[in-house]
């Protein structure tokens, strides 16, 4: 019943810890408390009554037979509470465990906020632990590599400048076979919006760019895609604790829009990138609201349907369920729009419970899936709760409008043999929309 009983080998964590001494840990912790954290952490730490009500909120806790070391308060107790009680005087070995908890056993999904009478934000506390671990250089290998890629290329997958542009040209060419005259307008100044994606799209899922271009084209949108870095809206630095890089990434993303003079940014079906834009990155740059409106695909598709810009040939008849991604539902309140779009596309929606802002996380979010293969088992076994939820619906298709949710749910569906097909809204719209003969 402690992180010490379940340590997982990770090169990044092991290397980071090998460089630590108790003194260095204490110095870094004191610097963090003196220079970065403030009343929020203090108030949260002091007012928590240790009532344990938050336990039931966490899919890790529920999926592990109510093991208290997975409860939100249990995780805080093993990390921040311990650090505060000991004034940061803990061993390198302790730090290994704290990093593993903060990076791989908490998705920062904020479901526990709905359980806490006092309003304690455990995600904030876990983020602060990640910040501390980043400062100590103790981060899981794969998410750290992603953070490195962000810093060197401004995208998360080491995509080189030309590879990005070339992918767009390639998809434009392909799509023209099906949609004669289709364009992906590059760097079109003053367009209504630029469409931003995450780096896995040009790297592995170019089909999604194809579909987006097809939808924009059929809907007659005034849009563009940028040729310059900043096109990737993703942000693993926010999750690794490298807030300086988070700010740099978001600046590039916003200034790209400001330089292209587009009215807004429309974002592909991603969750964490949205969080980085409306909640975290903007604050680091000193913006209270985001400087450029960023519209999630859900909102954008809803807008297209409301304006009658997309004509469908039919609807999905099979039972379809909806997964509510934390960062856009609990994080941005798009549950009704998601349902509006889903009902446009499907006749037989079966809700899963709990749902909407009370939905369970996919267990991939918060950068957990980005910690890579060593931690895959943790997140899949840590989300039996989600598997049970999915199973209970009897649905054949699950809509998940978020990349990380896709990754996480795919593994869960496979592991628990659920036989459910995962879809983006874009997949369904593309599948169902009227196309040229």
């Amino acid at each position, binding site marked *: 019943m402690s992180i010490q009983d379940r340590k997982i080998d990770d090169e990044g964590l092991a290397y980071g810890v090998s460089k630590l001494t108790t003194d260095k840990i204490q110095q870094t912790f004191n610097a963090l408390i003196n220079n970065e954290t403030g009343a929020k952490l203090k108030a949260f730490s002091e007012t928590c009554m240790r009532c344990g009500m938050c336990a039931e909120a966490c899919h890790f806790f529920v999926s592990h037979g109510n093991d208290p070391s997975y409860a939100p308060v249990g995780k805080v107790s093993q990390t921040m509470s311990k650090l505060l009680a000991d004034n940061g005087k803990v061993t390198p070995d302790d730090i290994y465990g704290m990093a593993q908890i903060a990076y791989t056993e908490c998705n920062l999904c904020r479901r526990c906020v709905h359980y806490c009478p006092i309003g304690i934000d455990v995600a904030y506390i876990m983020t602060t632990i990640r910040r501390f671990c980043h400062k100590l250089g103790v981060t899981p290998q794969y998410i750290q590599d992603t953070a490195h890629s962000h*810093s*060197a290329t401004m995208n998360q997958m080491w995509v080189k400048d030309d590879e990005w542009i070339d992918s767009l040209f390639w998809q434009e060419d392909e799509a023209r076979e099906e949609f004669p*005259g289709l*364009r992906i307008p590059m760097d079109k100044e003053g367009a209504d919006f630029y469409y931003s994606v995450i780096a896995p799209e040009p790297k592995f899922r170019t089909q999604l760019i194809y579909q987006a271009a097809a939808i924009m084209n059929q809907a007659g949108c005034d849009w563009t895609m940028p*040729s310059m*870095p900043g096109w990737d809206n993703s942000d693993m630095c926010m999750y690794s604790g490298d807030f*300086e890089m988070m700010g740099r990434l978001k600046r590039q993303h916003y200034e790209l*829009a400001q330089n292209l003079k587009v009215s807004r940014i429309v974002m592909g079906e991603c969750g964490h990138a949205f969080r980085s834009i409306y909640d975290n990155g903007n604050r680091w740059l*000193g913006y209270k609201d*985001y400087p450029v409106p960023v519209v999630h695909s859900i909102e954008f598709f809803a807008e297209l349907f409301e304006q009658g810009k997309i004509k469908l040939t039919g609807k999905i008849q099979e039972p379809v369920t909806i997964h509510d991604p934390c960062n856009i539902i609990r994080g941005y309140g798009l549950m009704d729009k998601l349902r509006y779009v889903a009902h446009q596309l499907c006749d037989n929606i079966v809700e899963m419970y709990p749902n909407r802002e009370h939905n369970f996380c996919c267990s991939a979010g918060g950068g957990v899936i980005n910690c890579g293969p060593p931690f895959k088992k943790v997140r899949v076994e840590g989300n039996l709760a989600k598997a049970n939820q999915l199973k209970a619906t009897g649905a054949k298709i699950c809509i998940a409008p978020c990349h990380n949710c896709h990754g996480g749910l795919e593994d869960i569906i496979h592991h628990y043999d659920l036989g459910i097909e995962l879809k983006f809204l874009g997949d369904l719209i593309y599948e169902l929309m009227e196309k040229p003969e």
Partner: protein
Amino acid sequence: MQLYFPLLPCVPTKGASVNPWMAKEASMYKTETWNWEVGQRTIADMTPKSDHTWQEEIVMSPDGEKASAIVCLDDAEFSIRTNDDVSENTFEKLWELTYAANGDLCCYAMQDEEWTMVVADKPWEETYGFVWSPLFSCDGNNIATAVQQDMEYGMSVNGSIWENLYENANNFAISPDGKKSAAVVQVTPMGQADLKTFRNGIFSIAVDGIAWDTHLMNLWTPVFDANAYRVAAQVRLTLYDYSIIVDNTLWDNTYQGVWNPLFTPDGKHVVAPVRQGGKWGLAKDGQLIWKATYANCWHQQFSPDGENLFAIVAPEYGKFTVAVNDVPWKMRSPVITDLAVSPDGNSAAALANTLNTNWQICVNGSTWNGSYDMAWKPVFCPHSSSVAAKVRKNGKYSVLVNGKNVGGEFDMCFDPIFSDDGGKVLIRGVHEGKALRVVANVPN
């Protein structure tokens, strides 16, 4: 039209930015040779032709005498249309059509899987695996581009590729006269998820293809000085320590963060925003000259004589303005962009907005009446007495000069350009398919 983007060199030549070194902004155009007769002229009917599969976005020459667009003639057959004529040179693909300051029309072109730059209808002799990020000298006579050749990366200037190419390159820059080029280059290959190699530093800056011997974790936004080909860039030494490097030499101090450095107009010093104690200020050659008190501070610019220093700052969280020599304007806005400094260095203009709507134009801290759906960077006249800006409201474009609407409405238009004497303004736009050229007197 923007010729050089010192603050975000990766962003190509879109938008209305002006070179911070230029003593007189208009001097990048040879405006004295243009027709300044007041009135409106139709340059061409640019309605897409029925025998073209499609026509892309229209661009107009700086003097407003030509309107051009990429046209698709057939499957994988592209050409450039200028006024009524379509060039006989066709390519499999064209993109990034831009007029240089000297009036040359430039475009990236692909034929038989090889890319090159076409300048004034003539392709460069060299061809490349890929080309992007065009950069122009202030006068438009020299053009640089990022290139990829056999999966190696570098730059080409006027069609001559660097001798050394690299594993990767980005953050491209050229000197104001266009004679030198620089980029961040990856000097050491790195395997997948290899944290150690990355930590040891695999990046450097290459100037004209020759990499500095300092290899660092990260470098960003190299920038040249006005005339001596010095180069400064942002660096990250470790995951936590940021600084500035100037001609291969690091500043003595490190910071929690830095933004784009800028040379003083005399080229002797470098000034960059730095973060200390969670707040931003400005440092010159590694010493603070504006104390770190701002929630943010960036886009610094000098007056041409170097006496006045301007920057966009946030004195409080969520409230931005412009500071002149560390004294903020009284106005505040959730967002401030597009800071422009007058040629005499005594005035500044910027755009203020809320959520990218309600754009307003601020000159020396006071805001013009009227708000717009979008606004472009303000342009000062050579004598600094007038300011113009392109704006859009309800889908219609127009140009404001000293706060007043001049030249009518357009379906789209380009940045206004002042005459040498500052008495007239050239407005180029497209309305109902027609490319129009309007010369108007500057209102007081």
